[in-house]
């Protein structure tokens, strides 16, 4: 029966069949299940240990207190047989919660690691090429990977399911709530695993350590989101990707009073475009599922492109315009409310700008073509084009806005304008006390800075060096991170040296301190730098795009 089931899976999704087949060694499966069961057993033992015991001789008032007891101020009462009256629901709810949290961490971190390392290994060995050549769709192959690669992890988690359900039901959580919780976990796994696959496909150049990098990023993310409360800033959107956000809603369906406390998360304040998501479990969970679905969809857009053709950029230029609008609208929804932690309304604008900066760094990586692609574009463009016009021909503009493999700078500029429109919605809607002029100047500075980074990245990707991707990533990260650190070491605070800060990745730090004149000076300087860099880029593109004959004649 088992084999025929596996067989049927194999006909439906051969990739999943292959992954399971490679891992379905009875010994491994049994070990995974036993480790899981042992872990659960130990956890139960520890939980048992915290039940009340008869140690009244230790306490001064000859009474026993325990958090699971039902008496006044948790004093332990005994029934006629001398057994303690224990609030078992409360005890089970703690087990349910702990199991859930451990489950989230194990599923997301170990799964991320497995998928990234599996894909990186296949890409390195070259076996992925054969799968690419098969008539199966990329969706089917990659879904097979997601379902099959963490097979032993699934065995591990499934072995813990009975206890999880039992604990939940004993705690008074309705079955449907537990099932919904698992639906959210599955959606979050799908999102994280899709992201891992994309990371694995994208980063196969970072030999060896990318599984560690990917899974430790996941760990850091999950860990921090366990502690960050709802702040009514765009950060709420980021923390929403952690399934831990949904756990309180599930736990609270149990009617145990004063149960495990999630009050520090301030979930009730959770809002999006003034819609109160946090007050309503159904709204919160639906929105969370929608969020996972939307961003999984975008990840799969990249996956489909990269899987069949690893030399393509992750996103096409036209996709990027839509994606940026999507992200900006999503983030704007969280930025409109007044932040709980800051009295100044522009706080949210700054957070939006930080997010934007990160978004555009990611966008640069996703849009900038590699040297080979750029060369093909520069060298053979004239042969693809029908009519030859000068440098500023309409064909060129069209190419820079829509075509594959063309430099991404114009596309990034368009995306910046796109984000600017949405930022201006915030400026119009919010009761800001800031000088409108300085905000506009600041946005202009931010835009040119981003474009400068994009040009530098493109220039770095044109290098001959073999590890240009790593170099490019390193230089951009250094450009973003190092200047503020240096300025801080030199104790040049934004108030003291606003002009310097305008050249870091965080120019809005000086929005209050800098005069319009200073900002304008910085803007003009940056435009100059931008023009110089683009001149250089243009020159380099012309050089790598020239024909062999021309190169030969030049050397002579």
């Amino acid at each position, binding site marked *: 029966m088992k084999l025929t089931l596996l067989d049927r899976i194999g006909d439906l999704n051969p*990739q999943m069949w292959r992954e399971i087949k490679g891992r379905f060694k009875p010994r491994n499966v049994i070990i995974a299940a036993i480790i899981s069961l042992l872990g659960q057993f130990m956890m139960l033992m520890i939980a048992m240990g915290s039940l009340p015991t008869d140690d009244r001789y230790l306490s001064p008032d000859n009474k026993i207190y325990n958090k699971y007891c039902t008496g006044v101020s948790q004093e332990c009462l005994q029934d006629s047989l001398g057994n303690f009256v224990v609030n078992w629901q409360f005890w089970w709810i703690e087990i349910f919660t702990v199991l859930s949290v451990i489950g989230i961490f194990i599923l997301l971190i170990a799964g991320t690691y497995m998928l990234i390392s599996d894909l990186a290994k296949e890409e390195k060995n070259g076996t992925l090429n054969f799968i690419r050549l098969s008539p199966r769709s990329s969706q089917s192959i990659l879904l097979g990977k997601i379902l099959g690669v963490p097979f032993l992890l699934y065995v591990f988690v499934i072995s813990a399911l009975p206890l999880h359900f039992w604990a939940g039901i004993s705690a008074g959580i309705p079955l449907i709530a537990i099932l919904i919780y698992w639906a959210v976990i599955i959606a979050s796994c799908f999102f994280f695993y899709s992201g891992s696959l994309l990371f694995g496909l994208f980063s196969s150049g970072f030999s060896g350590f990318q599984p560690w990098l990917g899974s430790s990023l996941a760990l850091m993310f999950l860990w921090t989101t366990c502690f960050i409360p709802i702040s009514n800033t765009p950060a709420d959107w980021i923390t929403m990707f952690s399934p831990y956000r949904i756990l309180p809603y599930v736990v609270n369906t149990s009617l145990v009073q004063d149960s495990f406390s999630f009050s520090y998360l301030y979930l009730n304040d959770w809002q999006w475009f003034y819609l109160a998501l946090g007050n309503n479990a159904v709204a919160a969970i639906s929105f969370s599922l929608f969020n996972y679905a939307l961003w999984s969809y975008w990840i799969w857009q990249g996956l489909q492109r990269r899987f069949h053709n690893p030399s393509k950029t992750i996103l096409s230029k036209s996709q990027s315009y839509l994606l940026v609008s999507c992200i900006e609208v999503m983030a704007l929804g969280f930025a409109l409310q007044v932040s709980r932690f800051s009295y100044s309304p522009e706080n949210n604008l700054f957070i939006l700008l930080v997010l934007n900066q990160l978004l555009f760094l990611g966008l640069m990586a996703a849009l900038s073509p590699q040297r080979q692609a750029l060369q093909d574009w520069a060298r053979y463009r004239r042969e693809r084009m029908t009519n030859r016009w000068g440098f500023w021909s309409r064909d060129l503009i069209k190419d820079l806005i829509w075509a594959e493999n063309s430099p991404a700078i114009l596309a990034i500029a368009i995306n910046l304008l796109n984000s600017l429109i949405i930022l201006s919605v915030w400026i119009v809607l919010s009761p800001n006390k800031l000088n409108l002029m300085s905000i506009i100047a600041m946005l202009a500075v931010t835009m040119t800075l981003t474009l400068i980074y994009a040009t530098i990245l493109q220039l770095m990707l044109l290098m001959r060096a073999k590890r240009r991707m790593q170099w490019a990533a390193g230089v951009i990260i250094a450009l973003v991170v190092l200047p503020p650190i240096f300025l801080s070491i030199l104790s040049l605070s934004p108030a003291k040296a606003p002009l310097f800060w305008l050249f870091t990745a965080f120019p809005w730090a000086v929005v209050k301190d800098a005069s319009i004149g200073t900002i304008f000076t910085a803007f003009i300087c940056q435009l100059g730098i931008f023009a110089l860099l683009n001149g250089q880029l243009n020159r380099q593109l012309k050089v790598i795009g020239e024909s062999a004959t021309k190169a030969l004649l030049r050397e002579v």
Partner: protein
Amino acid sequence: MSKELAICTRGLTKQFDRYIAVNDVDLEIKAGEVYGLIGPNGAGKTTLIRMLAAAEEPSIGEIYINGDRLMRDQSNPTLKQRLGYLPDDFPLYDDLTVWDYLDYFARLYRLREPRRSHRLYEVLELVQLTNKRNSPINTLSRGMKQRLSLARTIIHEPILLLLDEPVSGLDPIARMQFREIIKTLQEAGMTILISSHVLSDLAELCTSVGIMELGYLVESASLAELYRRLSRQQIIISTLGKLEALLSELKNYPLVEGYEVLSGTNQVRVDFGGTPEDCARLLRSLVKAGIPLNEFHCTQEDLESIFLKMGHKQAS
């Protein structure tokens, strides 16, 4: 685009930096042919085959397989169903057994039971790995792995096979087995593109040959035509009597273009410009002249000497 052409490329070019690996190649291979691709290392053979297998993106140019444009995305599953590609480094999965490995690829190519098992046995039989079907792949020898890779390449009965150096690193017996397999596949009607350095193998297998040099396809013709154009007729003659007598006879014969005495023997290799009838006439005249011949056989220059004669030694 003609339907009879299994492969047709138009202006196919691949440039890596300044280095043009494949330069404006118009390759045409008719259906049912075994096409040998020869050329020195670095001439662009592997890049060309990789582009034909959609494993590499051309800088510019078009590829048509059976008249359909080959693109590097998922728009053409039927086209992929027709292609089989064996790269020179043939990576495998070490965690699977031989059977599971082939089963996996058979499933990827949508082969259903009971056809699948049947085909698996058929292919295993062909590559002589039937008795190894339950062995893990990491226990196989190099030759076996190569044959397993070939089995993987043909499991879905492609009509076009692209084989990149399939016999490199194999011992003579394994090479012979490989040749036999290729012949069987050709008889089954597959079009096969094969690149190799072992020219004697190609001479035996191929119906057409293409020669690549510096990224260009400098020659592409049927083997018969290549022999006709470039290979000289040679006759090996040996005598039991005096060599001088034979040589003086040969000097007087007008169709003899040159000769070479094979050192240490009484054998002469004669470059001959005539037809087979002229050959017979030469034999008759030598016998009439009373020269005690004990060997006289007509032969042709082989592919290797043609290749060397053409002077295609430069890498790109």
